[in-house]
């Protein structure tokens, strides 16, 4: 199995002296390509910091982060921006889409920011893949919460990134819609070979993940891999 993401002795400390907070405390973790991983843990266990550091949005105080073989922790701001644009997709709990753009324009945004030409066919194909045929011209305000998450997933996948980070993607959805969205993430892994890392509280997500990492106090507390059926 290829390694998609590797964290090696990653420490992240906020503040100094007696008030310092060790959000990550020598975390070692490895996530594999073409799989769905869930990162779980109670509040304050370092989940958010893990996400920030892994995605190159925050620099670890010490240790290294490697994404698809490249050392993210050593990159400069400009390289990181390019990395986000070309190699990483994001899905958040809510406010994933620019309310002023249509679904199609939102999906194309990463490509447009990269200076690529508008490609409506590609966007429509991607929207169809997430089950939103015919909604390309809808604005986020006209879509349900579940549909908005689907658009967000389409946007995250359109660049064919090395890895998609999803931060509580089902947190704002009801049970059935959450199951749908989770199914879509699962499918993008099994059918299209994407690599998805979900940071979540939701045990339902963990139940369908290939691998579950549990964090506690900024360390890896437990790692379980699903036995292939």
């Amino acid at each position, binding site marked *: 199995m290829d390694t998609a993401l590797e964290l090696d002795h990653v420490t992240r400390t906020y503040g100094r002296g007696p008030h310092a907070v060790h959000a990550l405390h020598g975390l070692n973790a490895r996530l594999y390509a073409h799989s769905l991983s869930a990162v779980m843990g109670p509040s304050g266990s370092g989940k*958010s910091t893990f*996400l*920030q550091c892994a*995605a190159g*949005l*925050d620099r670890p105080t010490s240790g290294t982060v490697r994404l698809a073989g490249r050392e993210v922790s050593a990159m400069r*701001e*400009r390289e990181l*921006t*390019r990395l*986000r*644009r*070309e190699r990483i997709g*994001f899905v*958040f*709990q*809510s*406010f*994933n*889409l*620019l*309310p*002023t*753009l249509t679904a199609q*324009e939102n999906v194309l*945004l*990463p490509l*447009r*920011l*990269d*200076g690529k030409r508008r490609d409506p066919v590609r966007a429509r194909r991607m929207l169809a893949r997430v089950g939103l045929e015919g909604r390309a011209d809808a*604005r*986020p*305000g006209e*879509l349900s919460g579940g549909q*908005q998450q689907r658009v967000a997933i389409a*946007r995250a996948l359109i660049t064919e990134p090395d890895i998609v980070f999803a*931060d509580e993607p089902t947190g704002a959805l009801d049970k059935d819609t959450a199951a749908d969205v989770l199914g879509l993430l699962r499918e993008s892994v099994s059918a299209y070979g994407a690599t998805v890392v979900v940071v979540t509280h939701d045990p339902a997500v963990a139940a369908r993940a290939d691998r579950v990492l549990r964090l506690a106090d900024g360390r890896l507390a437990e790692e379980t891999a699903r036995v292939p059926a």
Partner: protein
Amino acid sequence: MSLFSTTGLAAASVKARPSAFVGTFAALVFSATVVTACVAIAVSAGGVPASADQAVMSDMGVAFSLLTVYLSIFVIGQVMSLAVAQRRRESALLRAVGAGPWQIRRMVATEALCTALLALPVGYGLGALLAQVWFDGMAGQGMVPDGMALRVGLPSLFAAFGVLFVSSQLGGLIAAWRASRTRPSAVLAGSQVQGGERPGWIRGLASLVFLAGAAALTAAAEAGSAEDAASEVPLVLLAYLVAIGLAGPWIGRLATVVAAPLLRGFGGAAGELAVAGCRARSRRLSAAITPIALVTAFAVAKFVSLTGTGDPEWMDVFGTLLYAGFAGLVAANTLVMLTLERLREFSLLRTVGADKRQVVAVVVAEGAITALAGVGAGVLAACAVMVPLGGKTGTPVSGLPGWAWAATLFCGAVLVWTASCAPLARMLRVRPIEGVVRRSS
């Protein structure tokens, strides 16, 4: 319960939103400064024996004092209601946990009063300086009556306090009334575009009525005597500006349509985002368009009428600066606020792969549209008044040199760009994921 029993909440809210506080504070300081100076001149002129010079000076002081009071109430009301609108979500949350509308009103009123008390000494000090500069300027022109000395004292201080108190409480009331009507369920509204509601037809109709009224007034003034025409210019201009204020969303859309081909063609992704943003938020933008149009229209009309007088009089210059100062303040404050409320949007753009320059480019491109709409509408209004009436009063529009037009356009654009980009440096330091997750700035 005492007036100050909610101070905890008010103080916490000021701490959490320094930018909203700064806007209100700046408006209050500006008002206090001008009131202090105007009252000082009026009082000082009132204390010397009657003469022609004395009468002019005294009338001028009183006229400016009244004008300032009126403008202060308008401006502070505007600035505060924007500051309160910004925390709709928080008000809704407070309402949801059981705060009554009156508790929210009292919180806003307390906040307004505290800000006014902080602004008073600063404004008073600056006002004393301004009065001195004004007085020296008039003395240089030989307009100061014999034996008059400038006295900035208690009358100025009391007047400034009175204006700040009344206008901050009135402004707070207007603002709080809006906030307290917030339905608790509004907490959940997340994906809607703020200010994206379609403007109603009543608003459009009212705009047309004012436009027709302004045209009728112009025709009437054209038929009357030259002196009447000169004195009616401000009134006609005001009618046009009310029409512009009402038509703001449509003007914004028109400017977007005009600028769209250029921005789409040369602005790349940032240009496209700016066009989409301006189109969707035209109602929000109209809050910035109106004051920019106001300052532009009055400045152009004043410049044109000054071409007739060989030596511009102090009173004219001061009056124009006063208008421009107030309107510019409102415009700048509105633009800062409009940028600030977009932290989540900018953060989202950055997680999707926009670099900081692209975010700045979006704001600059939107600023170009705003400036085009505001300055364009203002110039049109001024021309609509001065083309027919300017010839009559002996100051045709053609008398205004090209550099004056260029300077007006330049100042408008610089005001818009500076104010809308001012908060960006701080906003771009927020880590993108945090910015997306954060509920308000």
